[in-house]
């Protein structure tokens, strides 16, 4: 396991290096980069000989807080890992060719590999927080990949939408995981799986479950969060095939399966999850029937299939779980293929509209073969693996304890749509005459690396069906065992004799073919129908709420950030005064009493000077008068310092006052004149009230602080140790240069920076200014 997780994490490094490699080797970098997922596949297969599990390893993360980066592997992780790495290898090879001349190919590699590593991280992490980090990384890489063609506004909007929806779900999931962590006292998923009782008996469990379900629903595009997935088709086709069909969107299914032993026992699970899944299963299928774009067709059926998996997990019987795992595998195989085929068709013919495509079989024979195989699998025709999967779906619903016939009927309905879509995508563009003539189509031959990957996937599907007792059976058995937390036996075969399931399959196929043949009238009709219904669709809700969000943001920015300094300051002062008044009022009676000491004659003189000058400052009409008054205040304060035992302060204040006056004299006539314009009377009254309140508050606070007997140990310490430790008798200076020398160092650095700032700002105006002696 150590080796495997190091390989997986190395992906992030490889991703960073990928752009450089791409600059060196252009699109041929794909052949090198594909070695990374291939290495993961090899390591996984090596582990297969064991029991698909690997002992977990822990890297220290924040050990003091009990956080470890735990990596572990079990049957479920193995199945997902095989899909991620296996399809990943093909997608990198395919992508290199598909985006061959694209100027941003390096970004494709960068983000696809980051995604790959993160997704592998999701399925191998044994710590919930680690899982969350990788989960979010997949959302971010998905964002960048959907927005790959960032010049297009639609791509940007779709990327943004996907990020917002999955990101919001991710946050909900984090909250749920934290709740589970609180309940169990650990973030190790293994701890959770071993103590399901602990969770199920907790009153927080339903909240945690709903939050986690939200995360899974957004990620796996469940109704009503499904809308981002079809929009995400803005991404380049290899990305759609990989992230938005085969792997990333299955993360939600993975999460539900992973936590099934913990959350599956909740009553809420059976009440919510199947219905979410069922709604998505049927809704996605019906929505798919109104589409004409190859990728949109596939996207909506993907939504439907994801719904199917969630539905099956929701049923929660061992049979249903087994079916879900099989469906996970099957779907990735045929849907990945069909997406890659769609990309190839788009590349060769320049269109993805099924009405404009036709008779491509002669031009692209290998693609046609791959498409045919995948379509047959999707339609559930033996001997492909899709057939077995469909049989199992019917078996799960037929033998479910609750409403078996309704469930089965809806499953048939969804599968009928699947059959029709399989025909439209996998058969019609290659064999039938195009419905519309399009002069813009520039047909050219298929390129090798655009048909090898889909064909490999399609043939894998075929082999897994024909030799269903091989890899498929063992992998699904292993995955099921880890979901159910008990050893499960699985036995696949193509022929069970005449069973209700077989009859249902045949019925499905017949209706499907009928739907397929009536597509000319069906598609426009359904499309129009969905369009009429779009006013209740979540997509519209999304855009409405985004708009509302923006206008709220604009509104509150306008209120909070008026742009007028005055309002900011008034807010600050009013807040401070209010808080102080509240605090003082609640402690009234326990406030200390300030001591009255007799003022002396000189004190009174200087205080009177300060107060008068300060009040005169507000009335001053010339800048020079203001400066003079400021000087008077400063010098009076210096004298007060002198009178009250601060000779050092007094000297510094005198010197600084002098220099400040010099400074103002030098620049006074370059500063803006006092403006005549002033506030209306009400505003001025407000200003006066606020400033008087602020002043009174500060005076009161000052009296109260001085009345508290000071028992600071600082002063005695400094006084007693000044001579001994620092060999100085002027304690203030000793504090500055010795005891707190570091602060002084900081202070003189600030002075230096201020001087540099002055220099820079003046220099800006004068343009180039040569320093030195002139």
């Amino acid at each position: 396991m150590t080796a495997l997780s190091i390989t997986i994490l190395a992906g992030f490094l490889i991703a960073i290096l990928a752009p450089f490699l791409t600059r060196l080797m252009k699109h041929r970098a794909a052949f090198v980069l594909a070695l990374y997922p291939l290495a993961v596949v090899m390591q996984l297969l090596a582990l297969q000989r064991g029991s698909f599990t690997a002992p977990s390893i822990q890297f220290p993360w924040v050990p003091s807080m009990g956080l470890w980066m735990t990596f572990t592997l079990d049957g479920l992780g193995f199945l997902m890992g095989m899909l991620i790495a296996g399809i990943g290898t093909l997608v990198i090879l395919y992508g290199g060719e598909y985006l061959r001349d694209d100027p941003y190919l390096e970004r494709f590699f960068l983000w696809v590999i980051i995604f790959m590593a993160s997704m592998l991280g999701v399925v191998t992490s044994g710590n919930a927080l680690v899982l969350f980090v990788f989960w979010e990384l997949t959302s971010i890489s998905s964002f960048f990949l959907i927005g790959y063609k960032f010049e297009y506004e639609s791509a940007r909007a779709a990327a943004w939408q996907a990020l917002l929806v999955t990101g919001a779900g991710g946050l909900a999931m984090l909250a749920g995981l934290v709740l589970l962590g609180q309940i169990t006292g650990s973030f190790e998923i293994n701890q959770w799986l071993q103590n399901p009782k602990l969770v199920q008996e907790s009153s927080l469990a339903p909240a945690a479950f709903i939050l986690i379900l939200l995360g899974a629903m957004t990620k796996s595009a469940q109704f009503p969060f499904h809308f981002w997935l079809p929009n995400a088709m803005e991404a380049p086709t290899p990305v759609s095939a990989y992230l938005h069909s085969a792997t990333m969107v299955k993360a939600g299914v993975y999460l539900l399966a992973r936590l099934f032993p913990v959350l599956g026992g909740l009553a809420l699970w059976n009440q919510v999850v199947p219905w979410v899944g069922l709604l998505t299963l049927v809704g996605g299928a019906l929505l798919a029937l109104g589409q004409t774009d190859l990728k949109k067709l596939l996207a909506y059926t993907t939504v439907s299939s994801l719904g199917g998996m969630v539905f099956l997990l929701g049923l929660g019987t061992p049979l249903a779980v087994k079916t879900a795992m099989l469906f996970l595998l099957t779907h990735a195989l045929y849907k990945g293929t069909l997406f890659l085929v769609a990309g190839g068709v788009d590349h060769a013919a320049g269109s993805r509209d099924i009405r404009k495509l036709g008779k491509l079989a002669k031009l692209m024979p290998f693609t046609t073969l791959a498409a045919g195989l995948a379509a047959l699998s999707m339609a559930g025709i033996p001997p492909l693996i899709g057939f077995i999967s469909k049989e199992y779906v019917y078996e799960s619903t037929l033998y479910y304890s609750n409403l078996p016939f309704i469930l089965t009927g809806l499953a048939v309905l969804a599968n009928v749509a699947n059959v029709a879509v399989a025909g439209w995508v996998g058969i019609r563009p290659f064999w039938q005459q195009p419905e519309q003539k399009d002069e813009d189509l520039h047909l050219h031959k298929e390129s090798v690396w655009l048909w090898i990957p889909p064909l490999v996937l399609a043939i894998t599907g075929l082999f897994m069906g024909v030799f269903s007792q091989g890899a498929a059976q063992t992998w699904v058995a292993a995955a099921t065992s880890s979901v159910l937390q008990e050893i499960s036996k699985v036995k696949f075969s193509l022929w069970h004799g005449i069973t209700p399931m077989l009859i249902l399959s045949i019925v499905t196929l017949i209706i499907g073919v009928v739907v397929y043949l009536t597509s000319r009238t069906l598609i426009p009709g359904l499309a129009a129908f969905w369009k009429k219904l779009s006013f209740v669709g979540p997509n519209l809700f999304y855009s409405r709420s985004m708009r509302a969000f923006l206008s709220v943001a604009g509104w509150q920015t306008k209120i909070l950030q008026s742009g007028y300094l005055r309002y900011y300051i008034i807010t600050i002062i009013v807040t401070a005064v209010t808080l102080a008044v509240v605090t003082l009022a609640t402690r009234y009676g326990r406030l200390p009493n300030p001591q009255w000491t007799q003022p002396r004659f000189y004190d009174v003189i200087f205080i009177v000077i300060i107060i008068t000058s300060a009040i005169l400052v507000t009335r001053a009409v010339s800048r020079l008068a203001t400066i003079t008054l400021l000087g008077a205040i400063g010098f009076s304060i210096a004298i007060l310092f002198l009178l009250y035992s601060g000779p050092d302060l007094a000297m510094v204040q005198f010197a600084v006052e002098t220099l400040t006056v010099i400074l103002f004299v030098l620049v006074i006539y370059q500063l803006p004149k006092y403006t005549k314009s002033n506030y209306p009377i009400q505003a001025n009254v407000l200003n006066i009230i606020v400033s008087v309140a602020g002043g009174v508050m500060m005076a009161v606070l000052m009296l109260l602080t001085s009345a508290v007997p000071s028992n600071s140990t600082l002063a005695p310490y400094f006084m007693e140790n000044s001579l001994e430790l620092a060999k100085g008798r002027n304690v203030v200076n000793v504090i500055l240069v010795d005891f707190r020398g570091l602060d002084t160092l900081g202070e003189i650095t600030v002075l230096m920076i201020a001087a540099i700032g002055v220099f820079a700002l003046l220099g800006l105006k004068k343009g180039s200014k040569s320093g030195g002696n002139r």
Partner: protein
Amino acid sequence: MQRSIILPVATRYLMPLMLVFSIFLLLRGHNEVGGGFVGGLVAASALMLYAISTSPSALWKLLPLDPRFIAAIGLFISLFSGFIPLFYGKPFMTGMWIETPLPVLGKIGTPTLFDVGVYVLVIGVVVWILLEFAEDE
């Protein structure tokens, strides 16, 4: 505007006196009222007095170094004084003193050097800022 003759003449005598006084302040600062900040400010005032009574360019000529360098040297001296203890294996900015007091200067040690740095920096910064303004007219 006709310049008064009194100020330049007075400055000729005042400025050196003020500079000497500033050094006096700096040196006695550790034991009596005074210190690097006050000393530096007084010295800067003396120099600015000179600049006002004659002209900013005259001060440029008088100064041995660009005030920017003076400020930087001051900062460097202060920083350096903090590094000295490191050579003796003590923490940064530990105060270290020469055992026997020197004539005139009295006891000196790293804090003295630090204060000298502050003094030089304050002169440099203040003169720099004010000269920038004075020349900008």
